């Protein structure tokens, strides 16, 4: 089928891998039964879930029993942060996070603030990174939970999870990581990383929407209060009948990601280099983030004297994002980019190109040409431009 758009918004969502689609349909036909049922059909459905847990556990280097299935990263973030904070509320009510987190995290912290928790909001440096020393300085005797994302969804900035997690372990602070943009894309070894809670979602790594997971480390003091009640599934942490078809799809997506991660990363790195090389000469273009240490699947750039919404329209048929796609209806400047020191105008001109497995070299070459032309046209149209 001919494409009427060029999709460069893989950080918002990825197309489901055809093998995953096949697996989901197969499971809907043969493994449709309630996995809590003890008859043969139920056991078959349960087996599909167990297999998927092993596949995801292999990707993350954890035991399958540490994985709690959820509806996606937003639910996982809510369960980890609200559930973790409430579980430890009798020990202390101080929490730590960053202003550059996804709204699925920041809005939970705001909710907890309204419940009487005290939240410290950390800001990154100009490249979006959180200095572990800054993090350590924010901890107090009553700090019980911290949440720092692995890969920023807007800029691709990668945080030093190892260093921050080590500080949390030393201070017995529950450490949650929103890894929605990292799982299946970057190597994550939770047998080594000091992470207590980790959120992920299937549709960011070529799996289905509507299914995600929360990793809950099997160690003393690491637990979350449930958000839902009604049924004893998943150790009562997240009750509800499990969607075996979606879980089976996520499991296969994890297995595919594990086997193709090295080649995926090389592919993304090559394409982002071509894209950046193609637009680097645009006068006044700035990278939001850090090309050297950031995730290679994301390139976020701003330019001066160009209005962001018009730039988006001028870039069609490219499918790209301004700020976070999850917040694309808002006209407000991205708080993530404001935290990097960008002015409102520069933040509003930001375009996030996010690349994926299906992105081709000609796609990014076209995108670079289109971006260059669009900026030139809009600047020429602006008051004050040379006639």
């Amino acid at each position: 089928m001919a494409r009427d758009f060029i999709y460069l918004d893989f950080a918002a969502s990825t197309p489901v891998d055809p093998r995953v689609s096949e697996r989901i349909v197969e499971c809907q036909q043969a493994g449709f039964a309630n996995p809590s049922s003890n008859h043969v059909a139920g056991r078959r459905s349960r087996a599909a879930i167990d297999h998927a847990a092993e596949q995801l556990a292999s990707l993350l280097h954890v035991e399958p029993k540490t994985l709690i299935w959820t509806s996606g990263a937003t639910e996982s973030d809510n369960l980890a942060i609200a559930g973790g904070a409430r579980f430890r509320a009798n020990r202390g009510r101080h929490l730590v996070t960053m202003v550059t987190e996804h709204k699925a995290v920041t809005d939970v912290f705001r909710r907890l603030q309204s419940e009487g928790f005290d939240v410290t909001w950390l800001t990154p440096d100009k490249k979006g990174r959180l200095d572990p020393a800054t993090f350590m300085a924010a901890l107090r005797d009553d700090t019980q939970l911290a949440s720092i994302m692995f890969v920023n969804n807007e800029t691709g900035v990668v945080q030093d999870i190892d260093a921050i997690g080590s500080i949390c372990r030393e201070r017995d602070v529950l450490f949650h990581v929103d890894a929605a943009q990292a799982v299946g894309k970057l190597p994550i070894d939770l047998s080594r990383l000091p992470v207590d809670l980790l959120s992920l979602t299937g549709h960011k790594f070529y799996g289905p929407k509507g299914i995600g997971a929360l990793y809950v480390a099997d160690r003393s003091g690491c637990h979350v209060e449930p958000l839902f009640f009604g049924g004893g599934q998943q150790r009562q942490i997240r009750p509800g009948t499990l969607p075996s078809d979606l879980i089976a799809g996520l499991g296969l997506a994890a297995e595919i990601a594990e086997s193709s991660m090295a080649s995926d990363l090389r592919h993304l790195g090559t394409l982002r280099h071509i894209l950046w090389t193609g637009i680097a000469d645009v006068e006044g273009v700035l990278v939001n983030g850090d090309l050297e240490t950031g995730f290679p699947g994301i390139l976020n750039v701003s330019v001066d004297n160009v209005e962001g919404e018009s730039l988006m329209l001028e870039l069609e048929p490219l499918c790209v994002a301004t700020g976070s796609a999850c917040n694309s209806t808002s006209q407000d400047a991205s708080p993530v980019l404001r935290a990097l020191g960008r002015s409102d105008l520069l933040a509003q001109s930001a375009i996030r190109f996010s690349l994926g497995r299906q992105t081709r070299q000609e796609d990014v070459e076209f995108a670079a040409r289109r971006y260059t032309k669009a900026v030139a046209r809009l600047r020429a149209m602006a008051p004050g431009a040379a006639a």
Partner: protein
Amino acid sequence: MSADPYSSLVRQYFAAAAHAGDLNDAETADVEEQGVRIRLAATHVNGKILALAFRAWGCPHVIAACEGFCAEFEGKPVASLGEFRAADIMQKLSVPVEKTGRILVLEDAVRSLGQRICDGPVSQ
């Protein structure tokens, strides 16, 4: 598929903004409000608008509204500039109500242009 935020006329005016640019020996009006910048230019003779042009920094609706204004008012009497209403062009282009403030910037610019023409020397 969710609704396109832009009407076909907005897309048409934005993509082919034939009046974007400058005019020689023209009266001009510059307005900057609400994060929108608009510069209108007009040449006129004997009380009639000969040509209109615009420059704009704003969202697609603002650019389309500027183009729509220029296309509609070229050749009309200068006095007709006073009849321009933001609400009319918003309806014509299906501009969402939350962008009213931005389109009112164009209305201010049109008023200012009309005033300048009345106050200034006849261009030809």
